[in-house]
């Protein structure tokens, strides 16, 4: 069976993350495993004391955790944070990236899990003595403790990134359990005064970093989905083989056989699409973002269909949170809503400007009527 689900990103990182997830799935998260295990150093360049790894390395970690259903904000802490920090001036960036790699600070993005890091929830006003930030950020991942927040914001029509002490940001307005079992929080910044130095990047560098963080978040969430799908199907197959009704194994009912076959076909399609996204990312393909949006929409469709199938085929067990397949189903549906839901990405895909390149391709003469 295991040969039907070869890993996407095999290697030591995957093994370590898998092992950690397997050992900790049943216990409450203690402390800050993401930093203790050194995963925050993955994307940090070597000259800043990091591992100098790439998104493929992080993808191994994401895959390992997702395969066993453990929820940790790896994408937020290990991808979004260092990618945003890299927008700062060389000296500032190095100092903070070093601290991130060492684990001596705990930096989290103050962004809604449902929005991409290139969306502004906060606006800033430049004052004589610094900045004043206002805005509501709802559904921020709060699974791990934070000493600092990175806040993407809009300043006078410019993209910007702020780095602010958690104490200054204050306590969240509300705390939640998210659909997939993480901790979430709502923050409200009401004319929060911060010093000039809190703005670590502005203009093009901030814009590019936020775009990169967005691509990485979309890509890694897609990896999470494919890994979760593999586990979901594996668990469902095991259930169908083991559970007996009417004196036979459920796996002998053709309707269920076809249903699980459909899940597998969807899984392979999703996996192919994610590999394609990775290639485009590595090659910095010009329409990477379009492909990522397509993947977001397509994976959402497949993942939800598979999640619903798995719940159905587990019968009553399918609605019990004790069952791993059920938790995977929850995770898959929740992942749809991370970094923009499908309605948002469809709107962007169908927006006139998104179609522009296609028009010029089909119009070989280049004339515009």
């Amino acid at each position, binding site marked *: 069976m295991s040969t039907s689900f070869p890993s996407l990103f095999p290697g030591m990182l995957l093994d370590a993350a898998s092992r950690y997830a397997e050992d900790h799935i049943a216990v409450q998260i203690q402390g800050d495993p993401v930093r203790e295990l050194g995963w925050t150093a993955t994307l940090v360049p070597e000259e800043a004391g990091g591992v100098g790894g790439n998104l493929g390395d992080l993808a191994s970690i994401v895959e390992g955790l997702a395969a066993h259903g453990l929820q940790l904000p790896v994408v937020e802490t290990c991808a979004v944070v260092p990618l945003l920090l890299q927008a700062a001036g060389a000296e500032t960036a190095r100092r903070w990236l070093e601290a991130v790699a060492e684990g001596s600070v705990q930096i989290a993005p103050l962004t809604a899990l*449902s929005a991409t890091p290139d969306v502004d929830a906060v606006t800033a006003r430049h004052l004589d003595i610094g900045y004043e930030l206002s805005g509501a950020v709802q559904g921020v991942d709060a699974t791990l403790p934070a000493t600092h927040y990175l806040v993407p914001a809009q300043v006078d029509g410019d993209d910007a990134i702020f780095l602010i002490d958690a104490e200054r940001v204050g306590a969240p307005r509300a705390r*939640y359990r998210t659909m997939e079992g993480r901790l979430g929080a709502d923050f409200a910044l009401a004319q929060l005064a911060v010093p000039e130095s809190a703005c670590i990047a502005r203009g093009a560098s901030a814009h590019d970093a936020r775009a990169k963080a967005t691509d990485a978040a979309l890509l890694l969430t897609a990896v999470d989905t494919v890994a979760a799908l593999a586990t979901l199907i594996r668990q469902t197959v095991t259930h169908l083989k083991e559970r007996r009704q009417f004196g036979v194994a459920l796996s002998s009912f053709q309707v269920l056989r076809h249903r699980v076959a459909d899940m597998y076909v969807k899984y392979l399609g999703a996996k192919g699409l994610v590999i394609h996204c990775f290639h485009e990312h590595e090659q910095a393909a010009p329409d990477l973002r379009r492909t990522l949006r397509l993947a977001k929409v397509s994976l959402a469709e497949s993942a939800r269909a598979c999640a619903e199938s798995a719940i*159905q085929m587990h*019968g009553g067990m399918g*609605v019990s*949170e*004790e069952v791993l397949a059920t938790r995977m189903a929850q995770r898959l549906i929740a992942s749809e*809503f991370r970094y923009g839901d499908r309605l*948002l990405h469809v709107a962007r895909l169908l927006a006139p400007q998104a179609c522009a390149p296609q028009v010029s391709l089909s119009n070989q003469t280049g004339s515009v009527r």
Partner: protein
Amino acid sequence: MSIDYAGFRRELESFVRSACPPEIRAVVAAGQKITKREYQAWQQILNARGWGAPSWPREAGGTGWDIRQRLIFEEVMAENDCPPLYHHGLGHIGPVIIRFGTPEQKARFLPRILDGSDWWCQGYSEPGSGSDLASLSTTARLDGDEWVVNGQKIWTSHAHEASMIYMLVRTSKETKKQEGISLLLVPMDTPGITVRPIKTIDGWHHLNEVFFDEVRVRADNLVGEVGKGWTCAKFLLERERLPPANVARLELMRRQVTQLVEGASRATAGLRDFSGLHHKLLMCEADVKGARVMMAQATDDLIHQRPLGVQPSVIKMTCADVAQRLTTIALDAVGPDAAHRFLAEVGDDVPDATWIQNYMFTRARTIAGGTSEVQRNVVANELLGA
């Protein structure tokens, strides 16, 4: 004397509008989980008016209404955001006791269902017996004038708040598996019963495991003949699958979801593409209209005592399917804001998150009370032979 149905509808409307407390209607209107509190309060109000059991015959304490009146009742209730009647007592075991129970059982159990003092749950499923209910293994042996029950039930909705359980037990192992099953009524406070909650994906507590360890039950709590419980169980399941409330509630849900989509669509104007959702809503609207006619036809067959055939299965599948599609549309509409604010730990609940819980809860509509696969088998067997 012919019934003035329009006048009947007006009478109901004016009653429910003045008698159903606003706080209860608010829970229903918001699509929140209806708990024992709301069910019970509303049951008592209806019962005081003489409408505690719309579907029961008059001699059993019911209204004696014809089927059309019952349908109108359900529609008026749904249109006015009143809770549905609590099904396990009124819809399931009540009719079984009326049909198969002794005069003494009727006198003992029916009034307490009517006035809401007994709250029933259903002990059918077991860990090893789900779709194949007939393979159940919880036993009851006669010891003097008591049955002694041992075994385990699972997925028992509301067992933690119920005062009574109606359960299928094996009273003989010697016969075919459908035979040797009996229907037993057991007070939940009998020593030897343990209820353990099951955590479910919607974040609400409704399911339980129920354990029976040498539980002693009065012999005269067995309904019908010993070993003939399967007949009662089937009678009950048919009623479980054909509640008129399902279709009326679907229309209520459709209106709620339409409002939700319109609100979300306005709030995120231009940023998110709602065209697909509007399309899906239209298809649900069409299907609800179709389901209403199916229900009316099944009703007509019931009135004229024609066999129902596969209608309960078809209506159950259709209602479950439309309910799932509607809550899925709701999930899409509110998901991005609500998925990360599913259950409040500190601060207020996010009202939209209730729709995510509803989406999760509604997954069970194609599982509980006979899965859709099993219903399809029923329909296919009718069309193609077993």
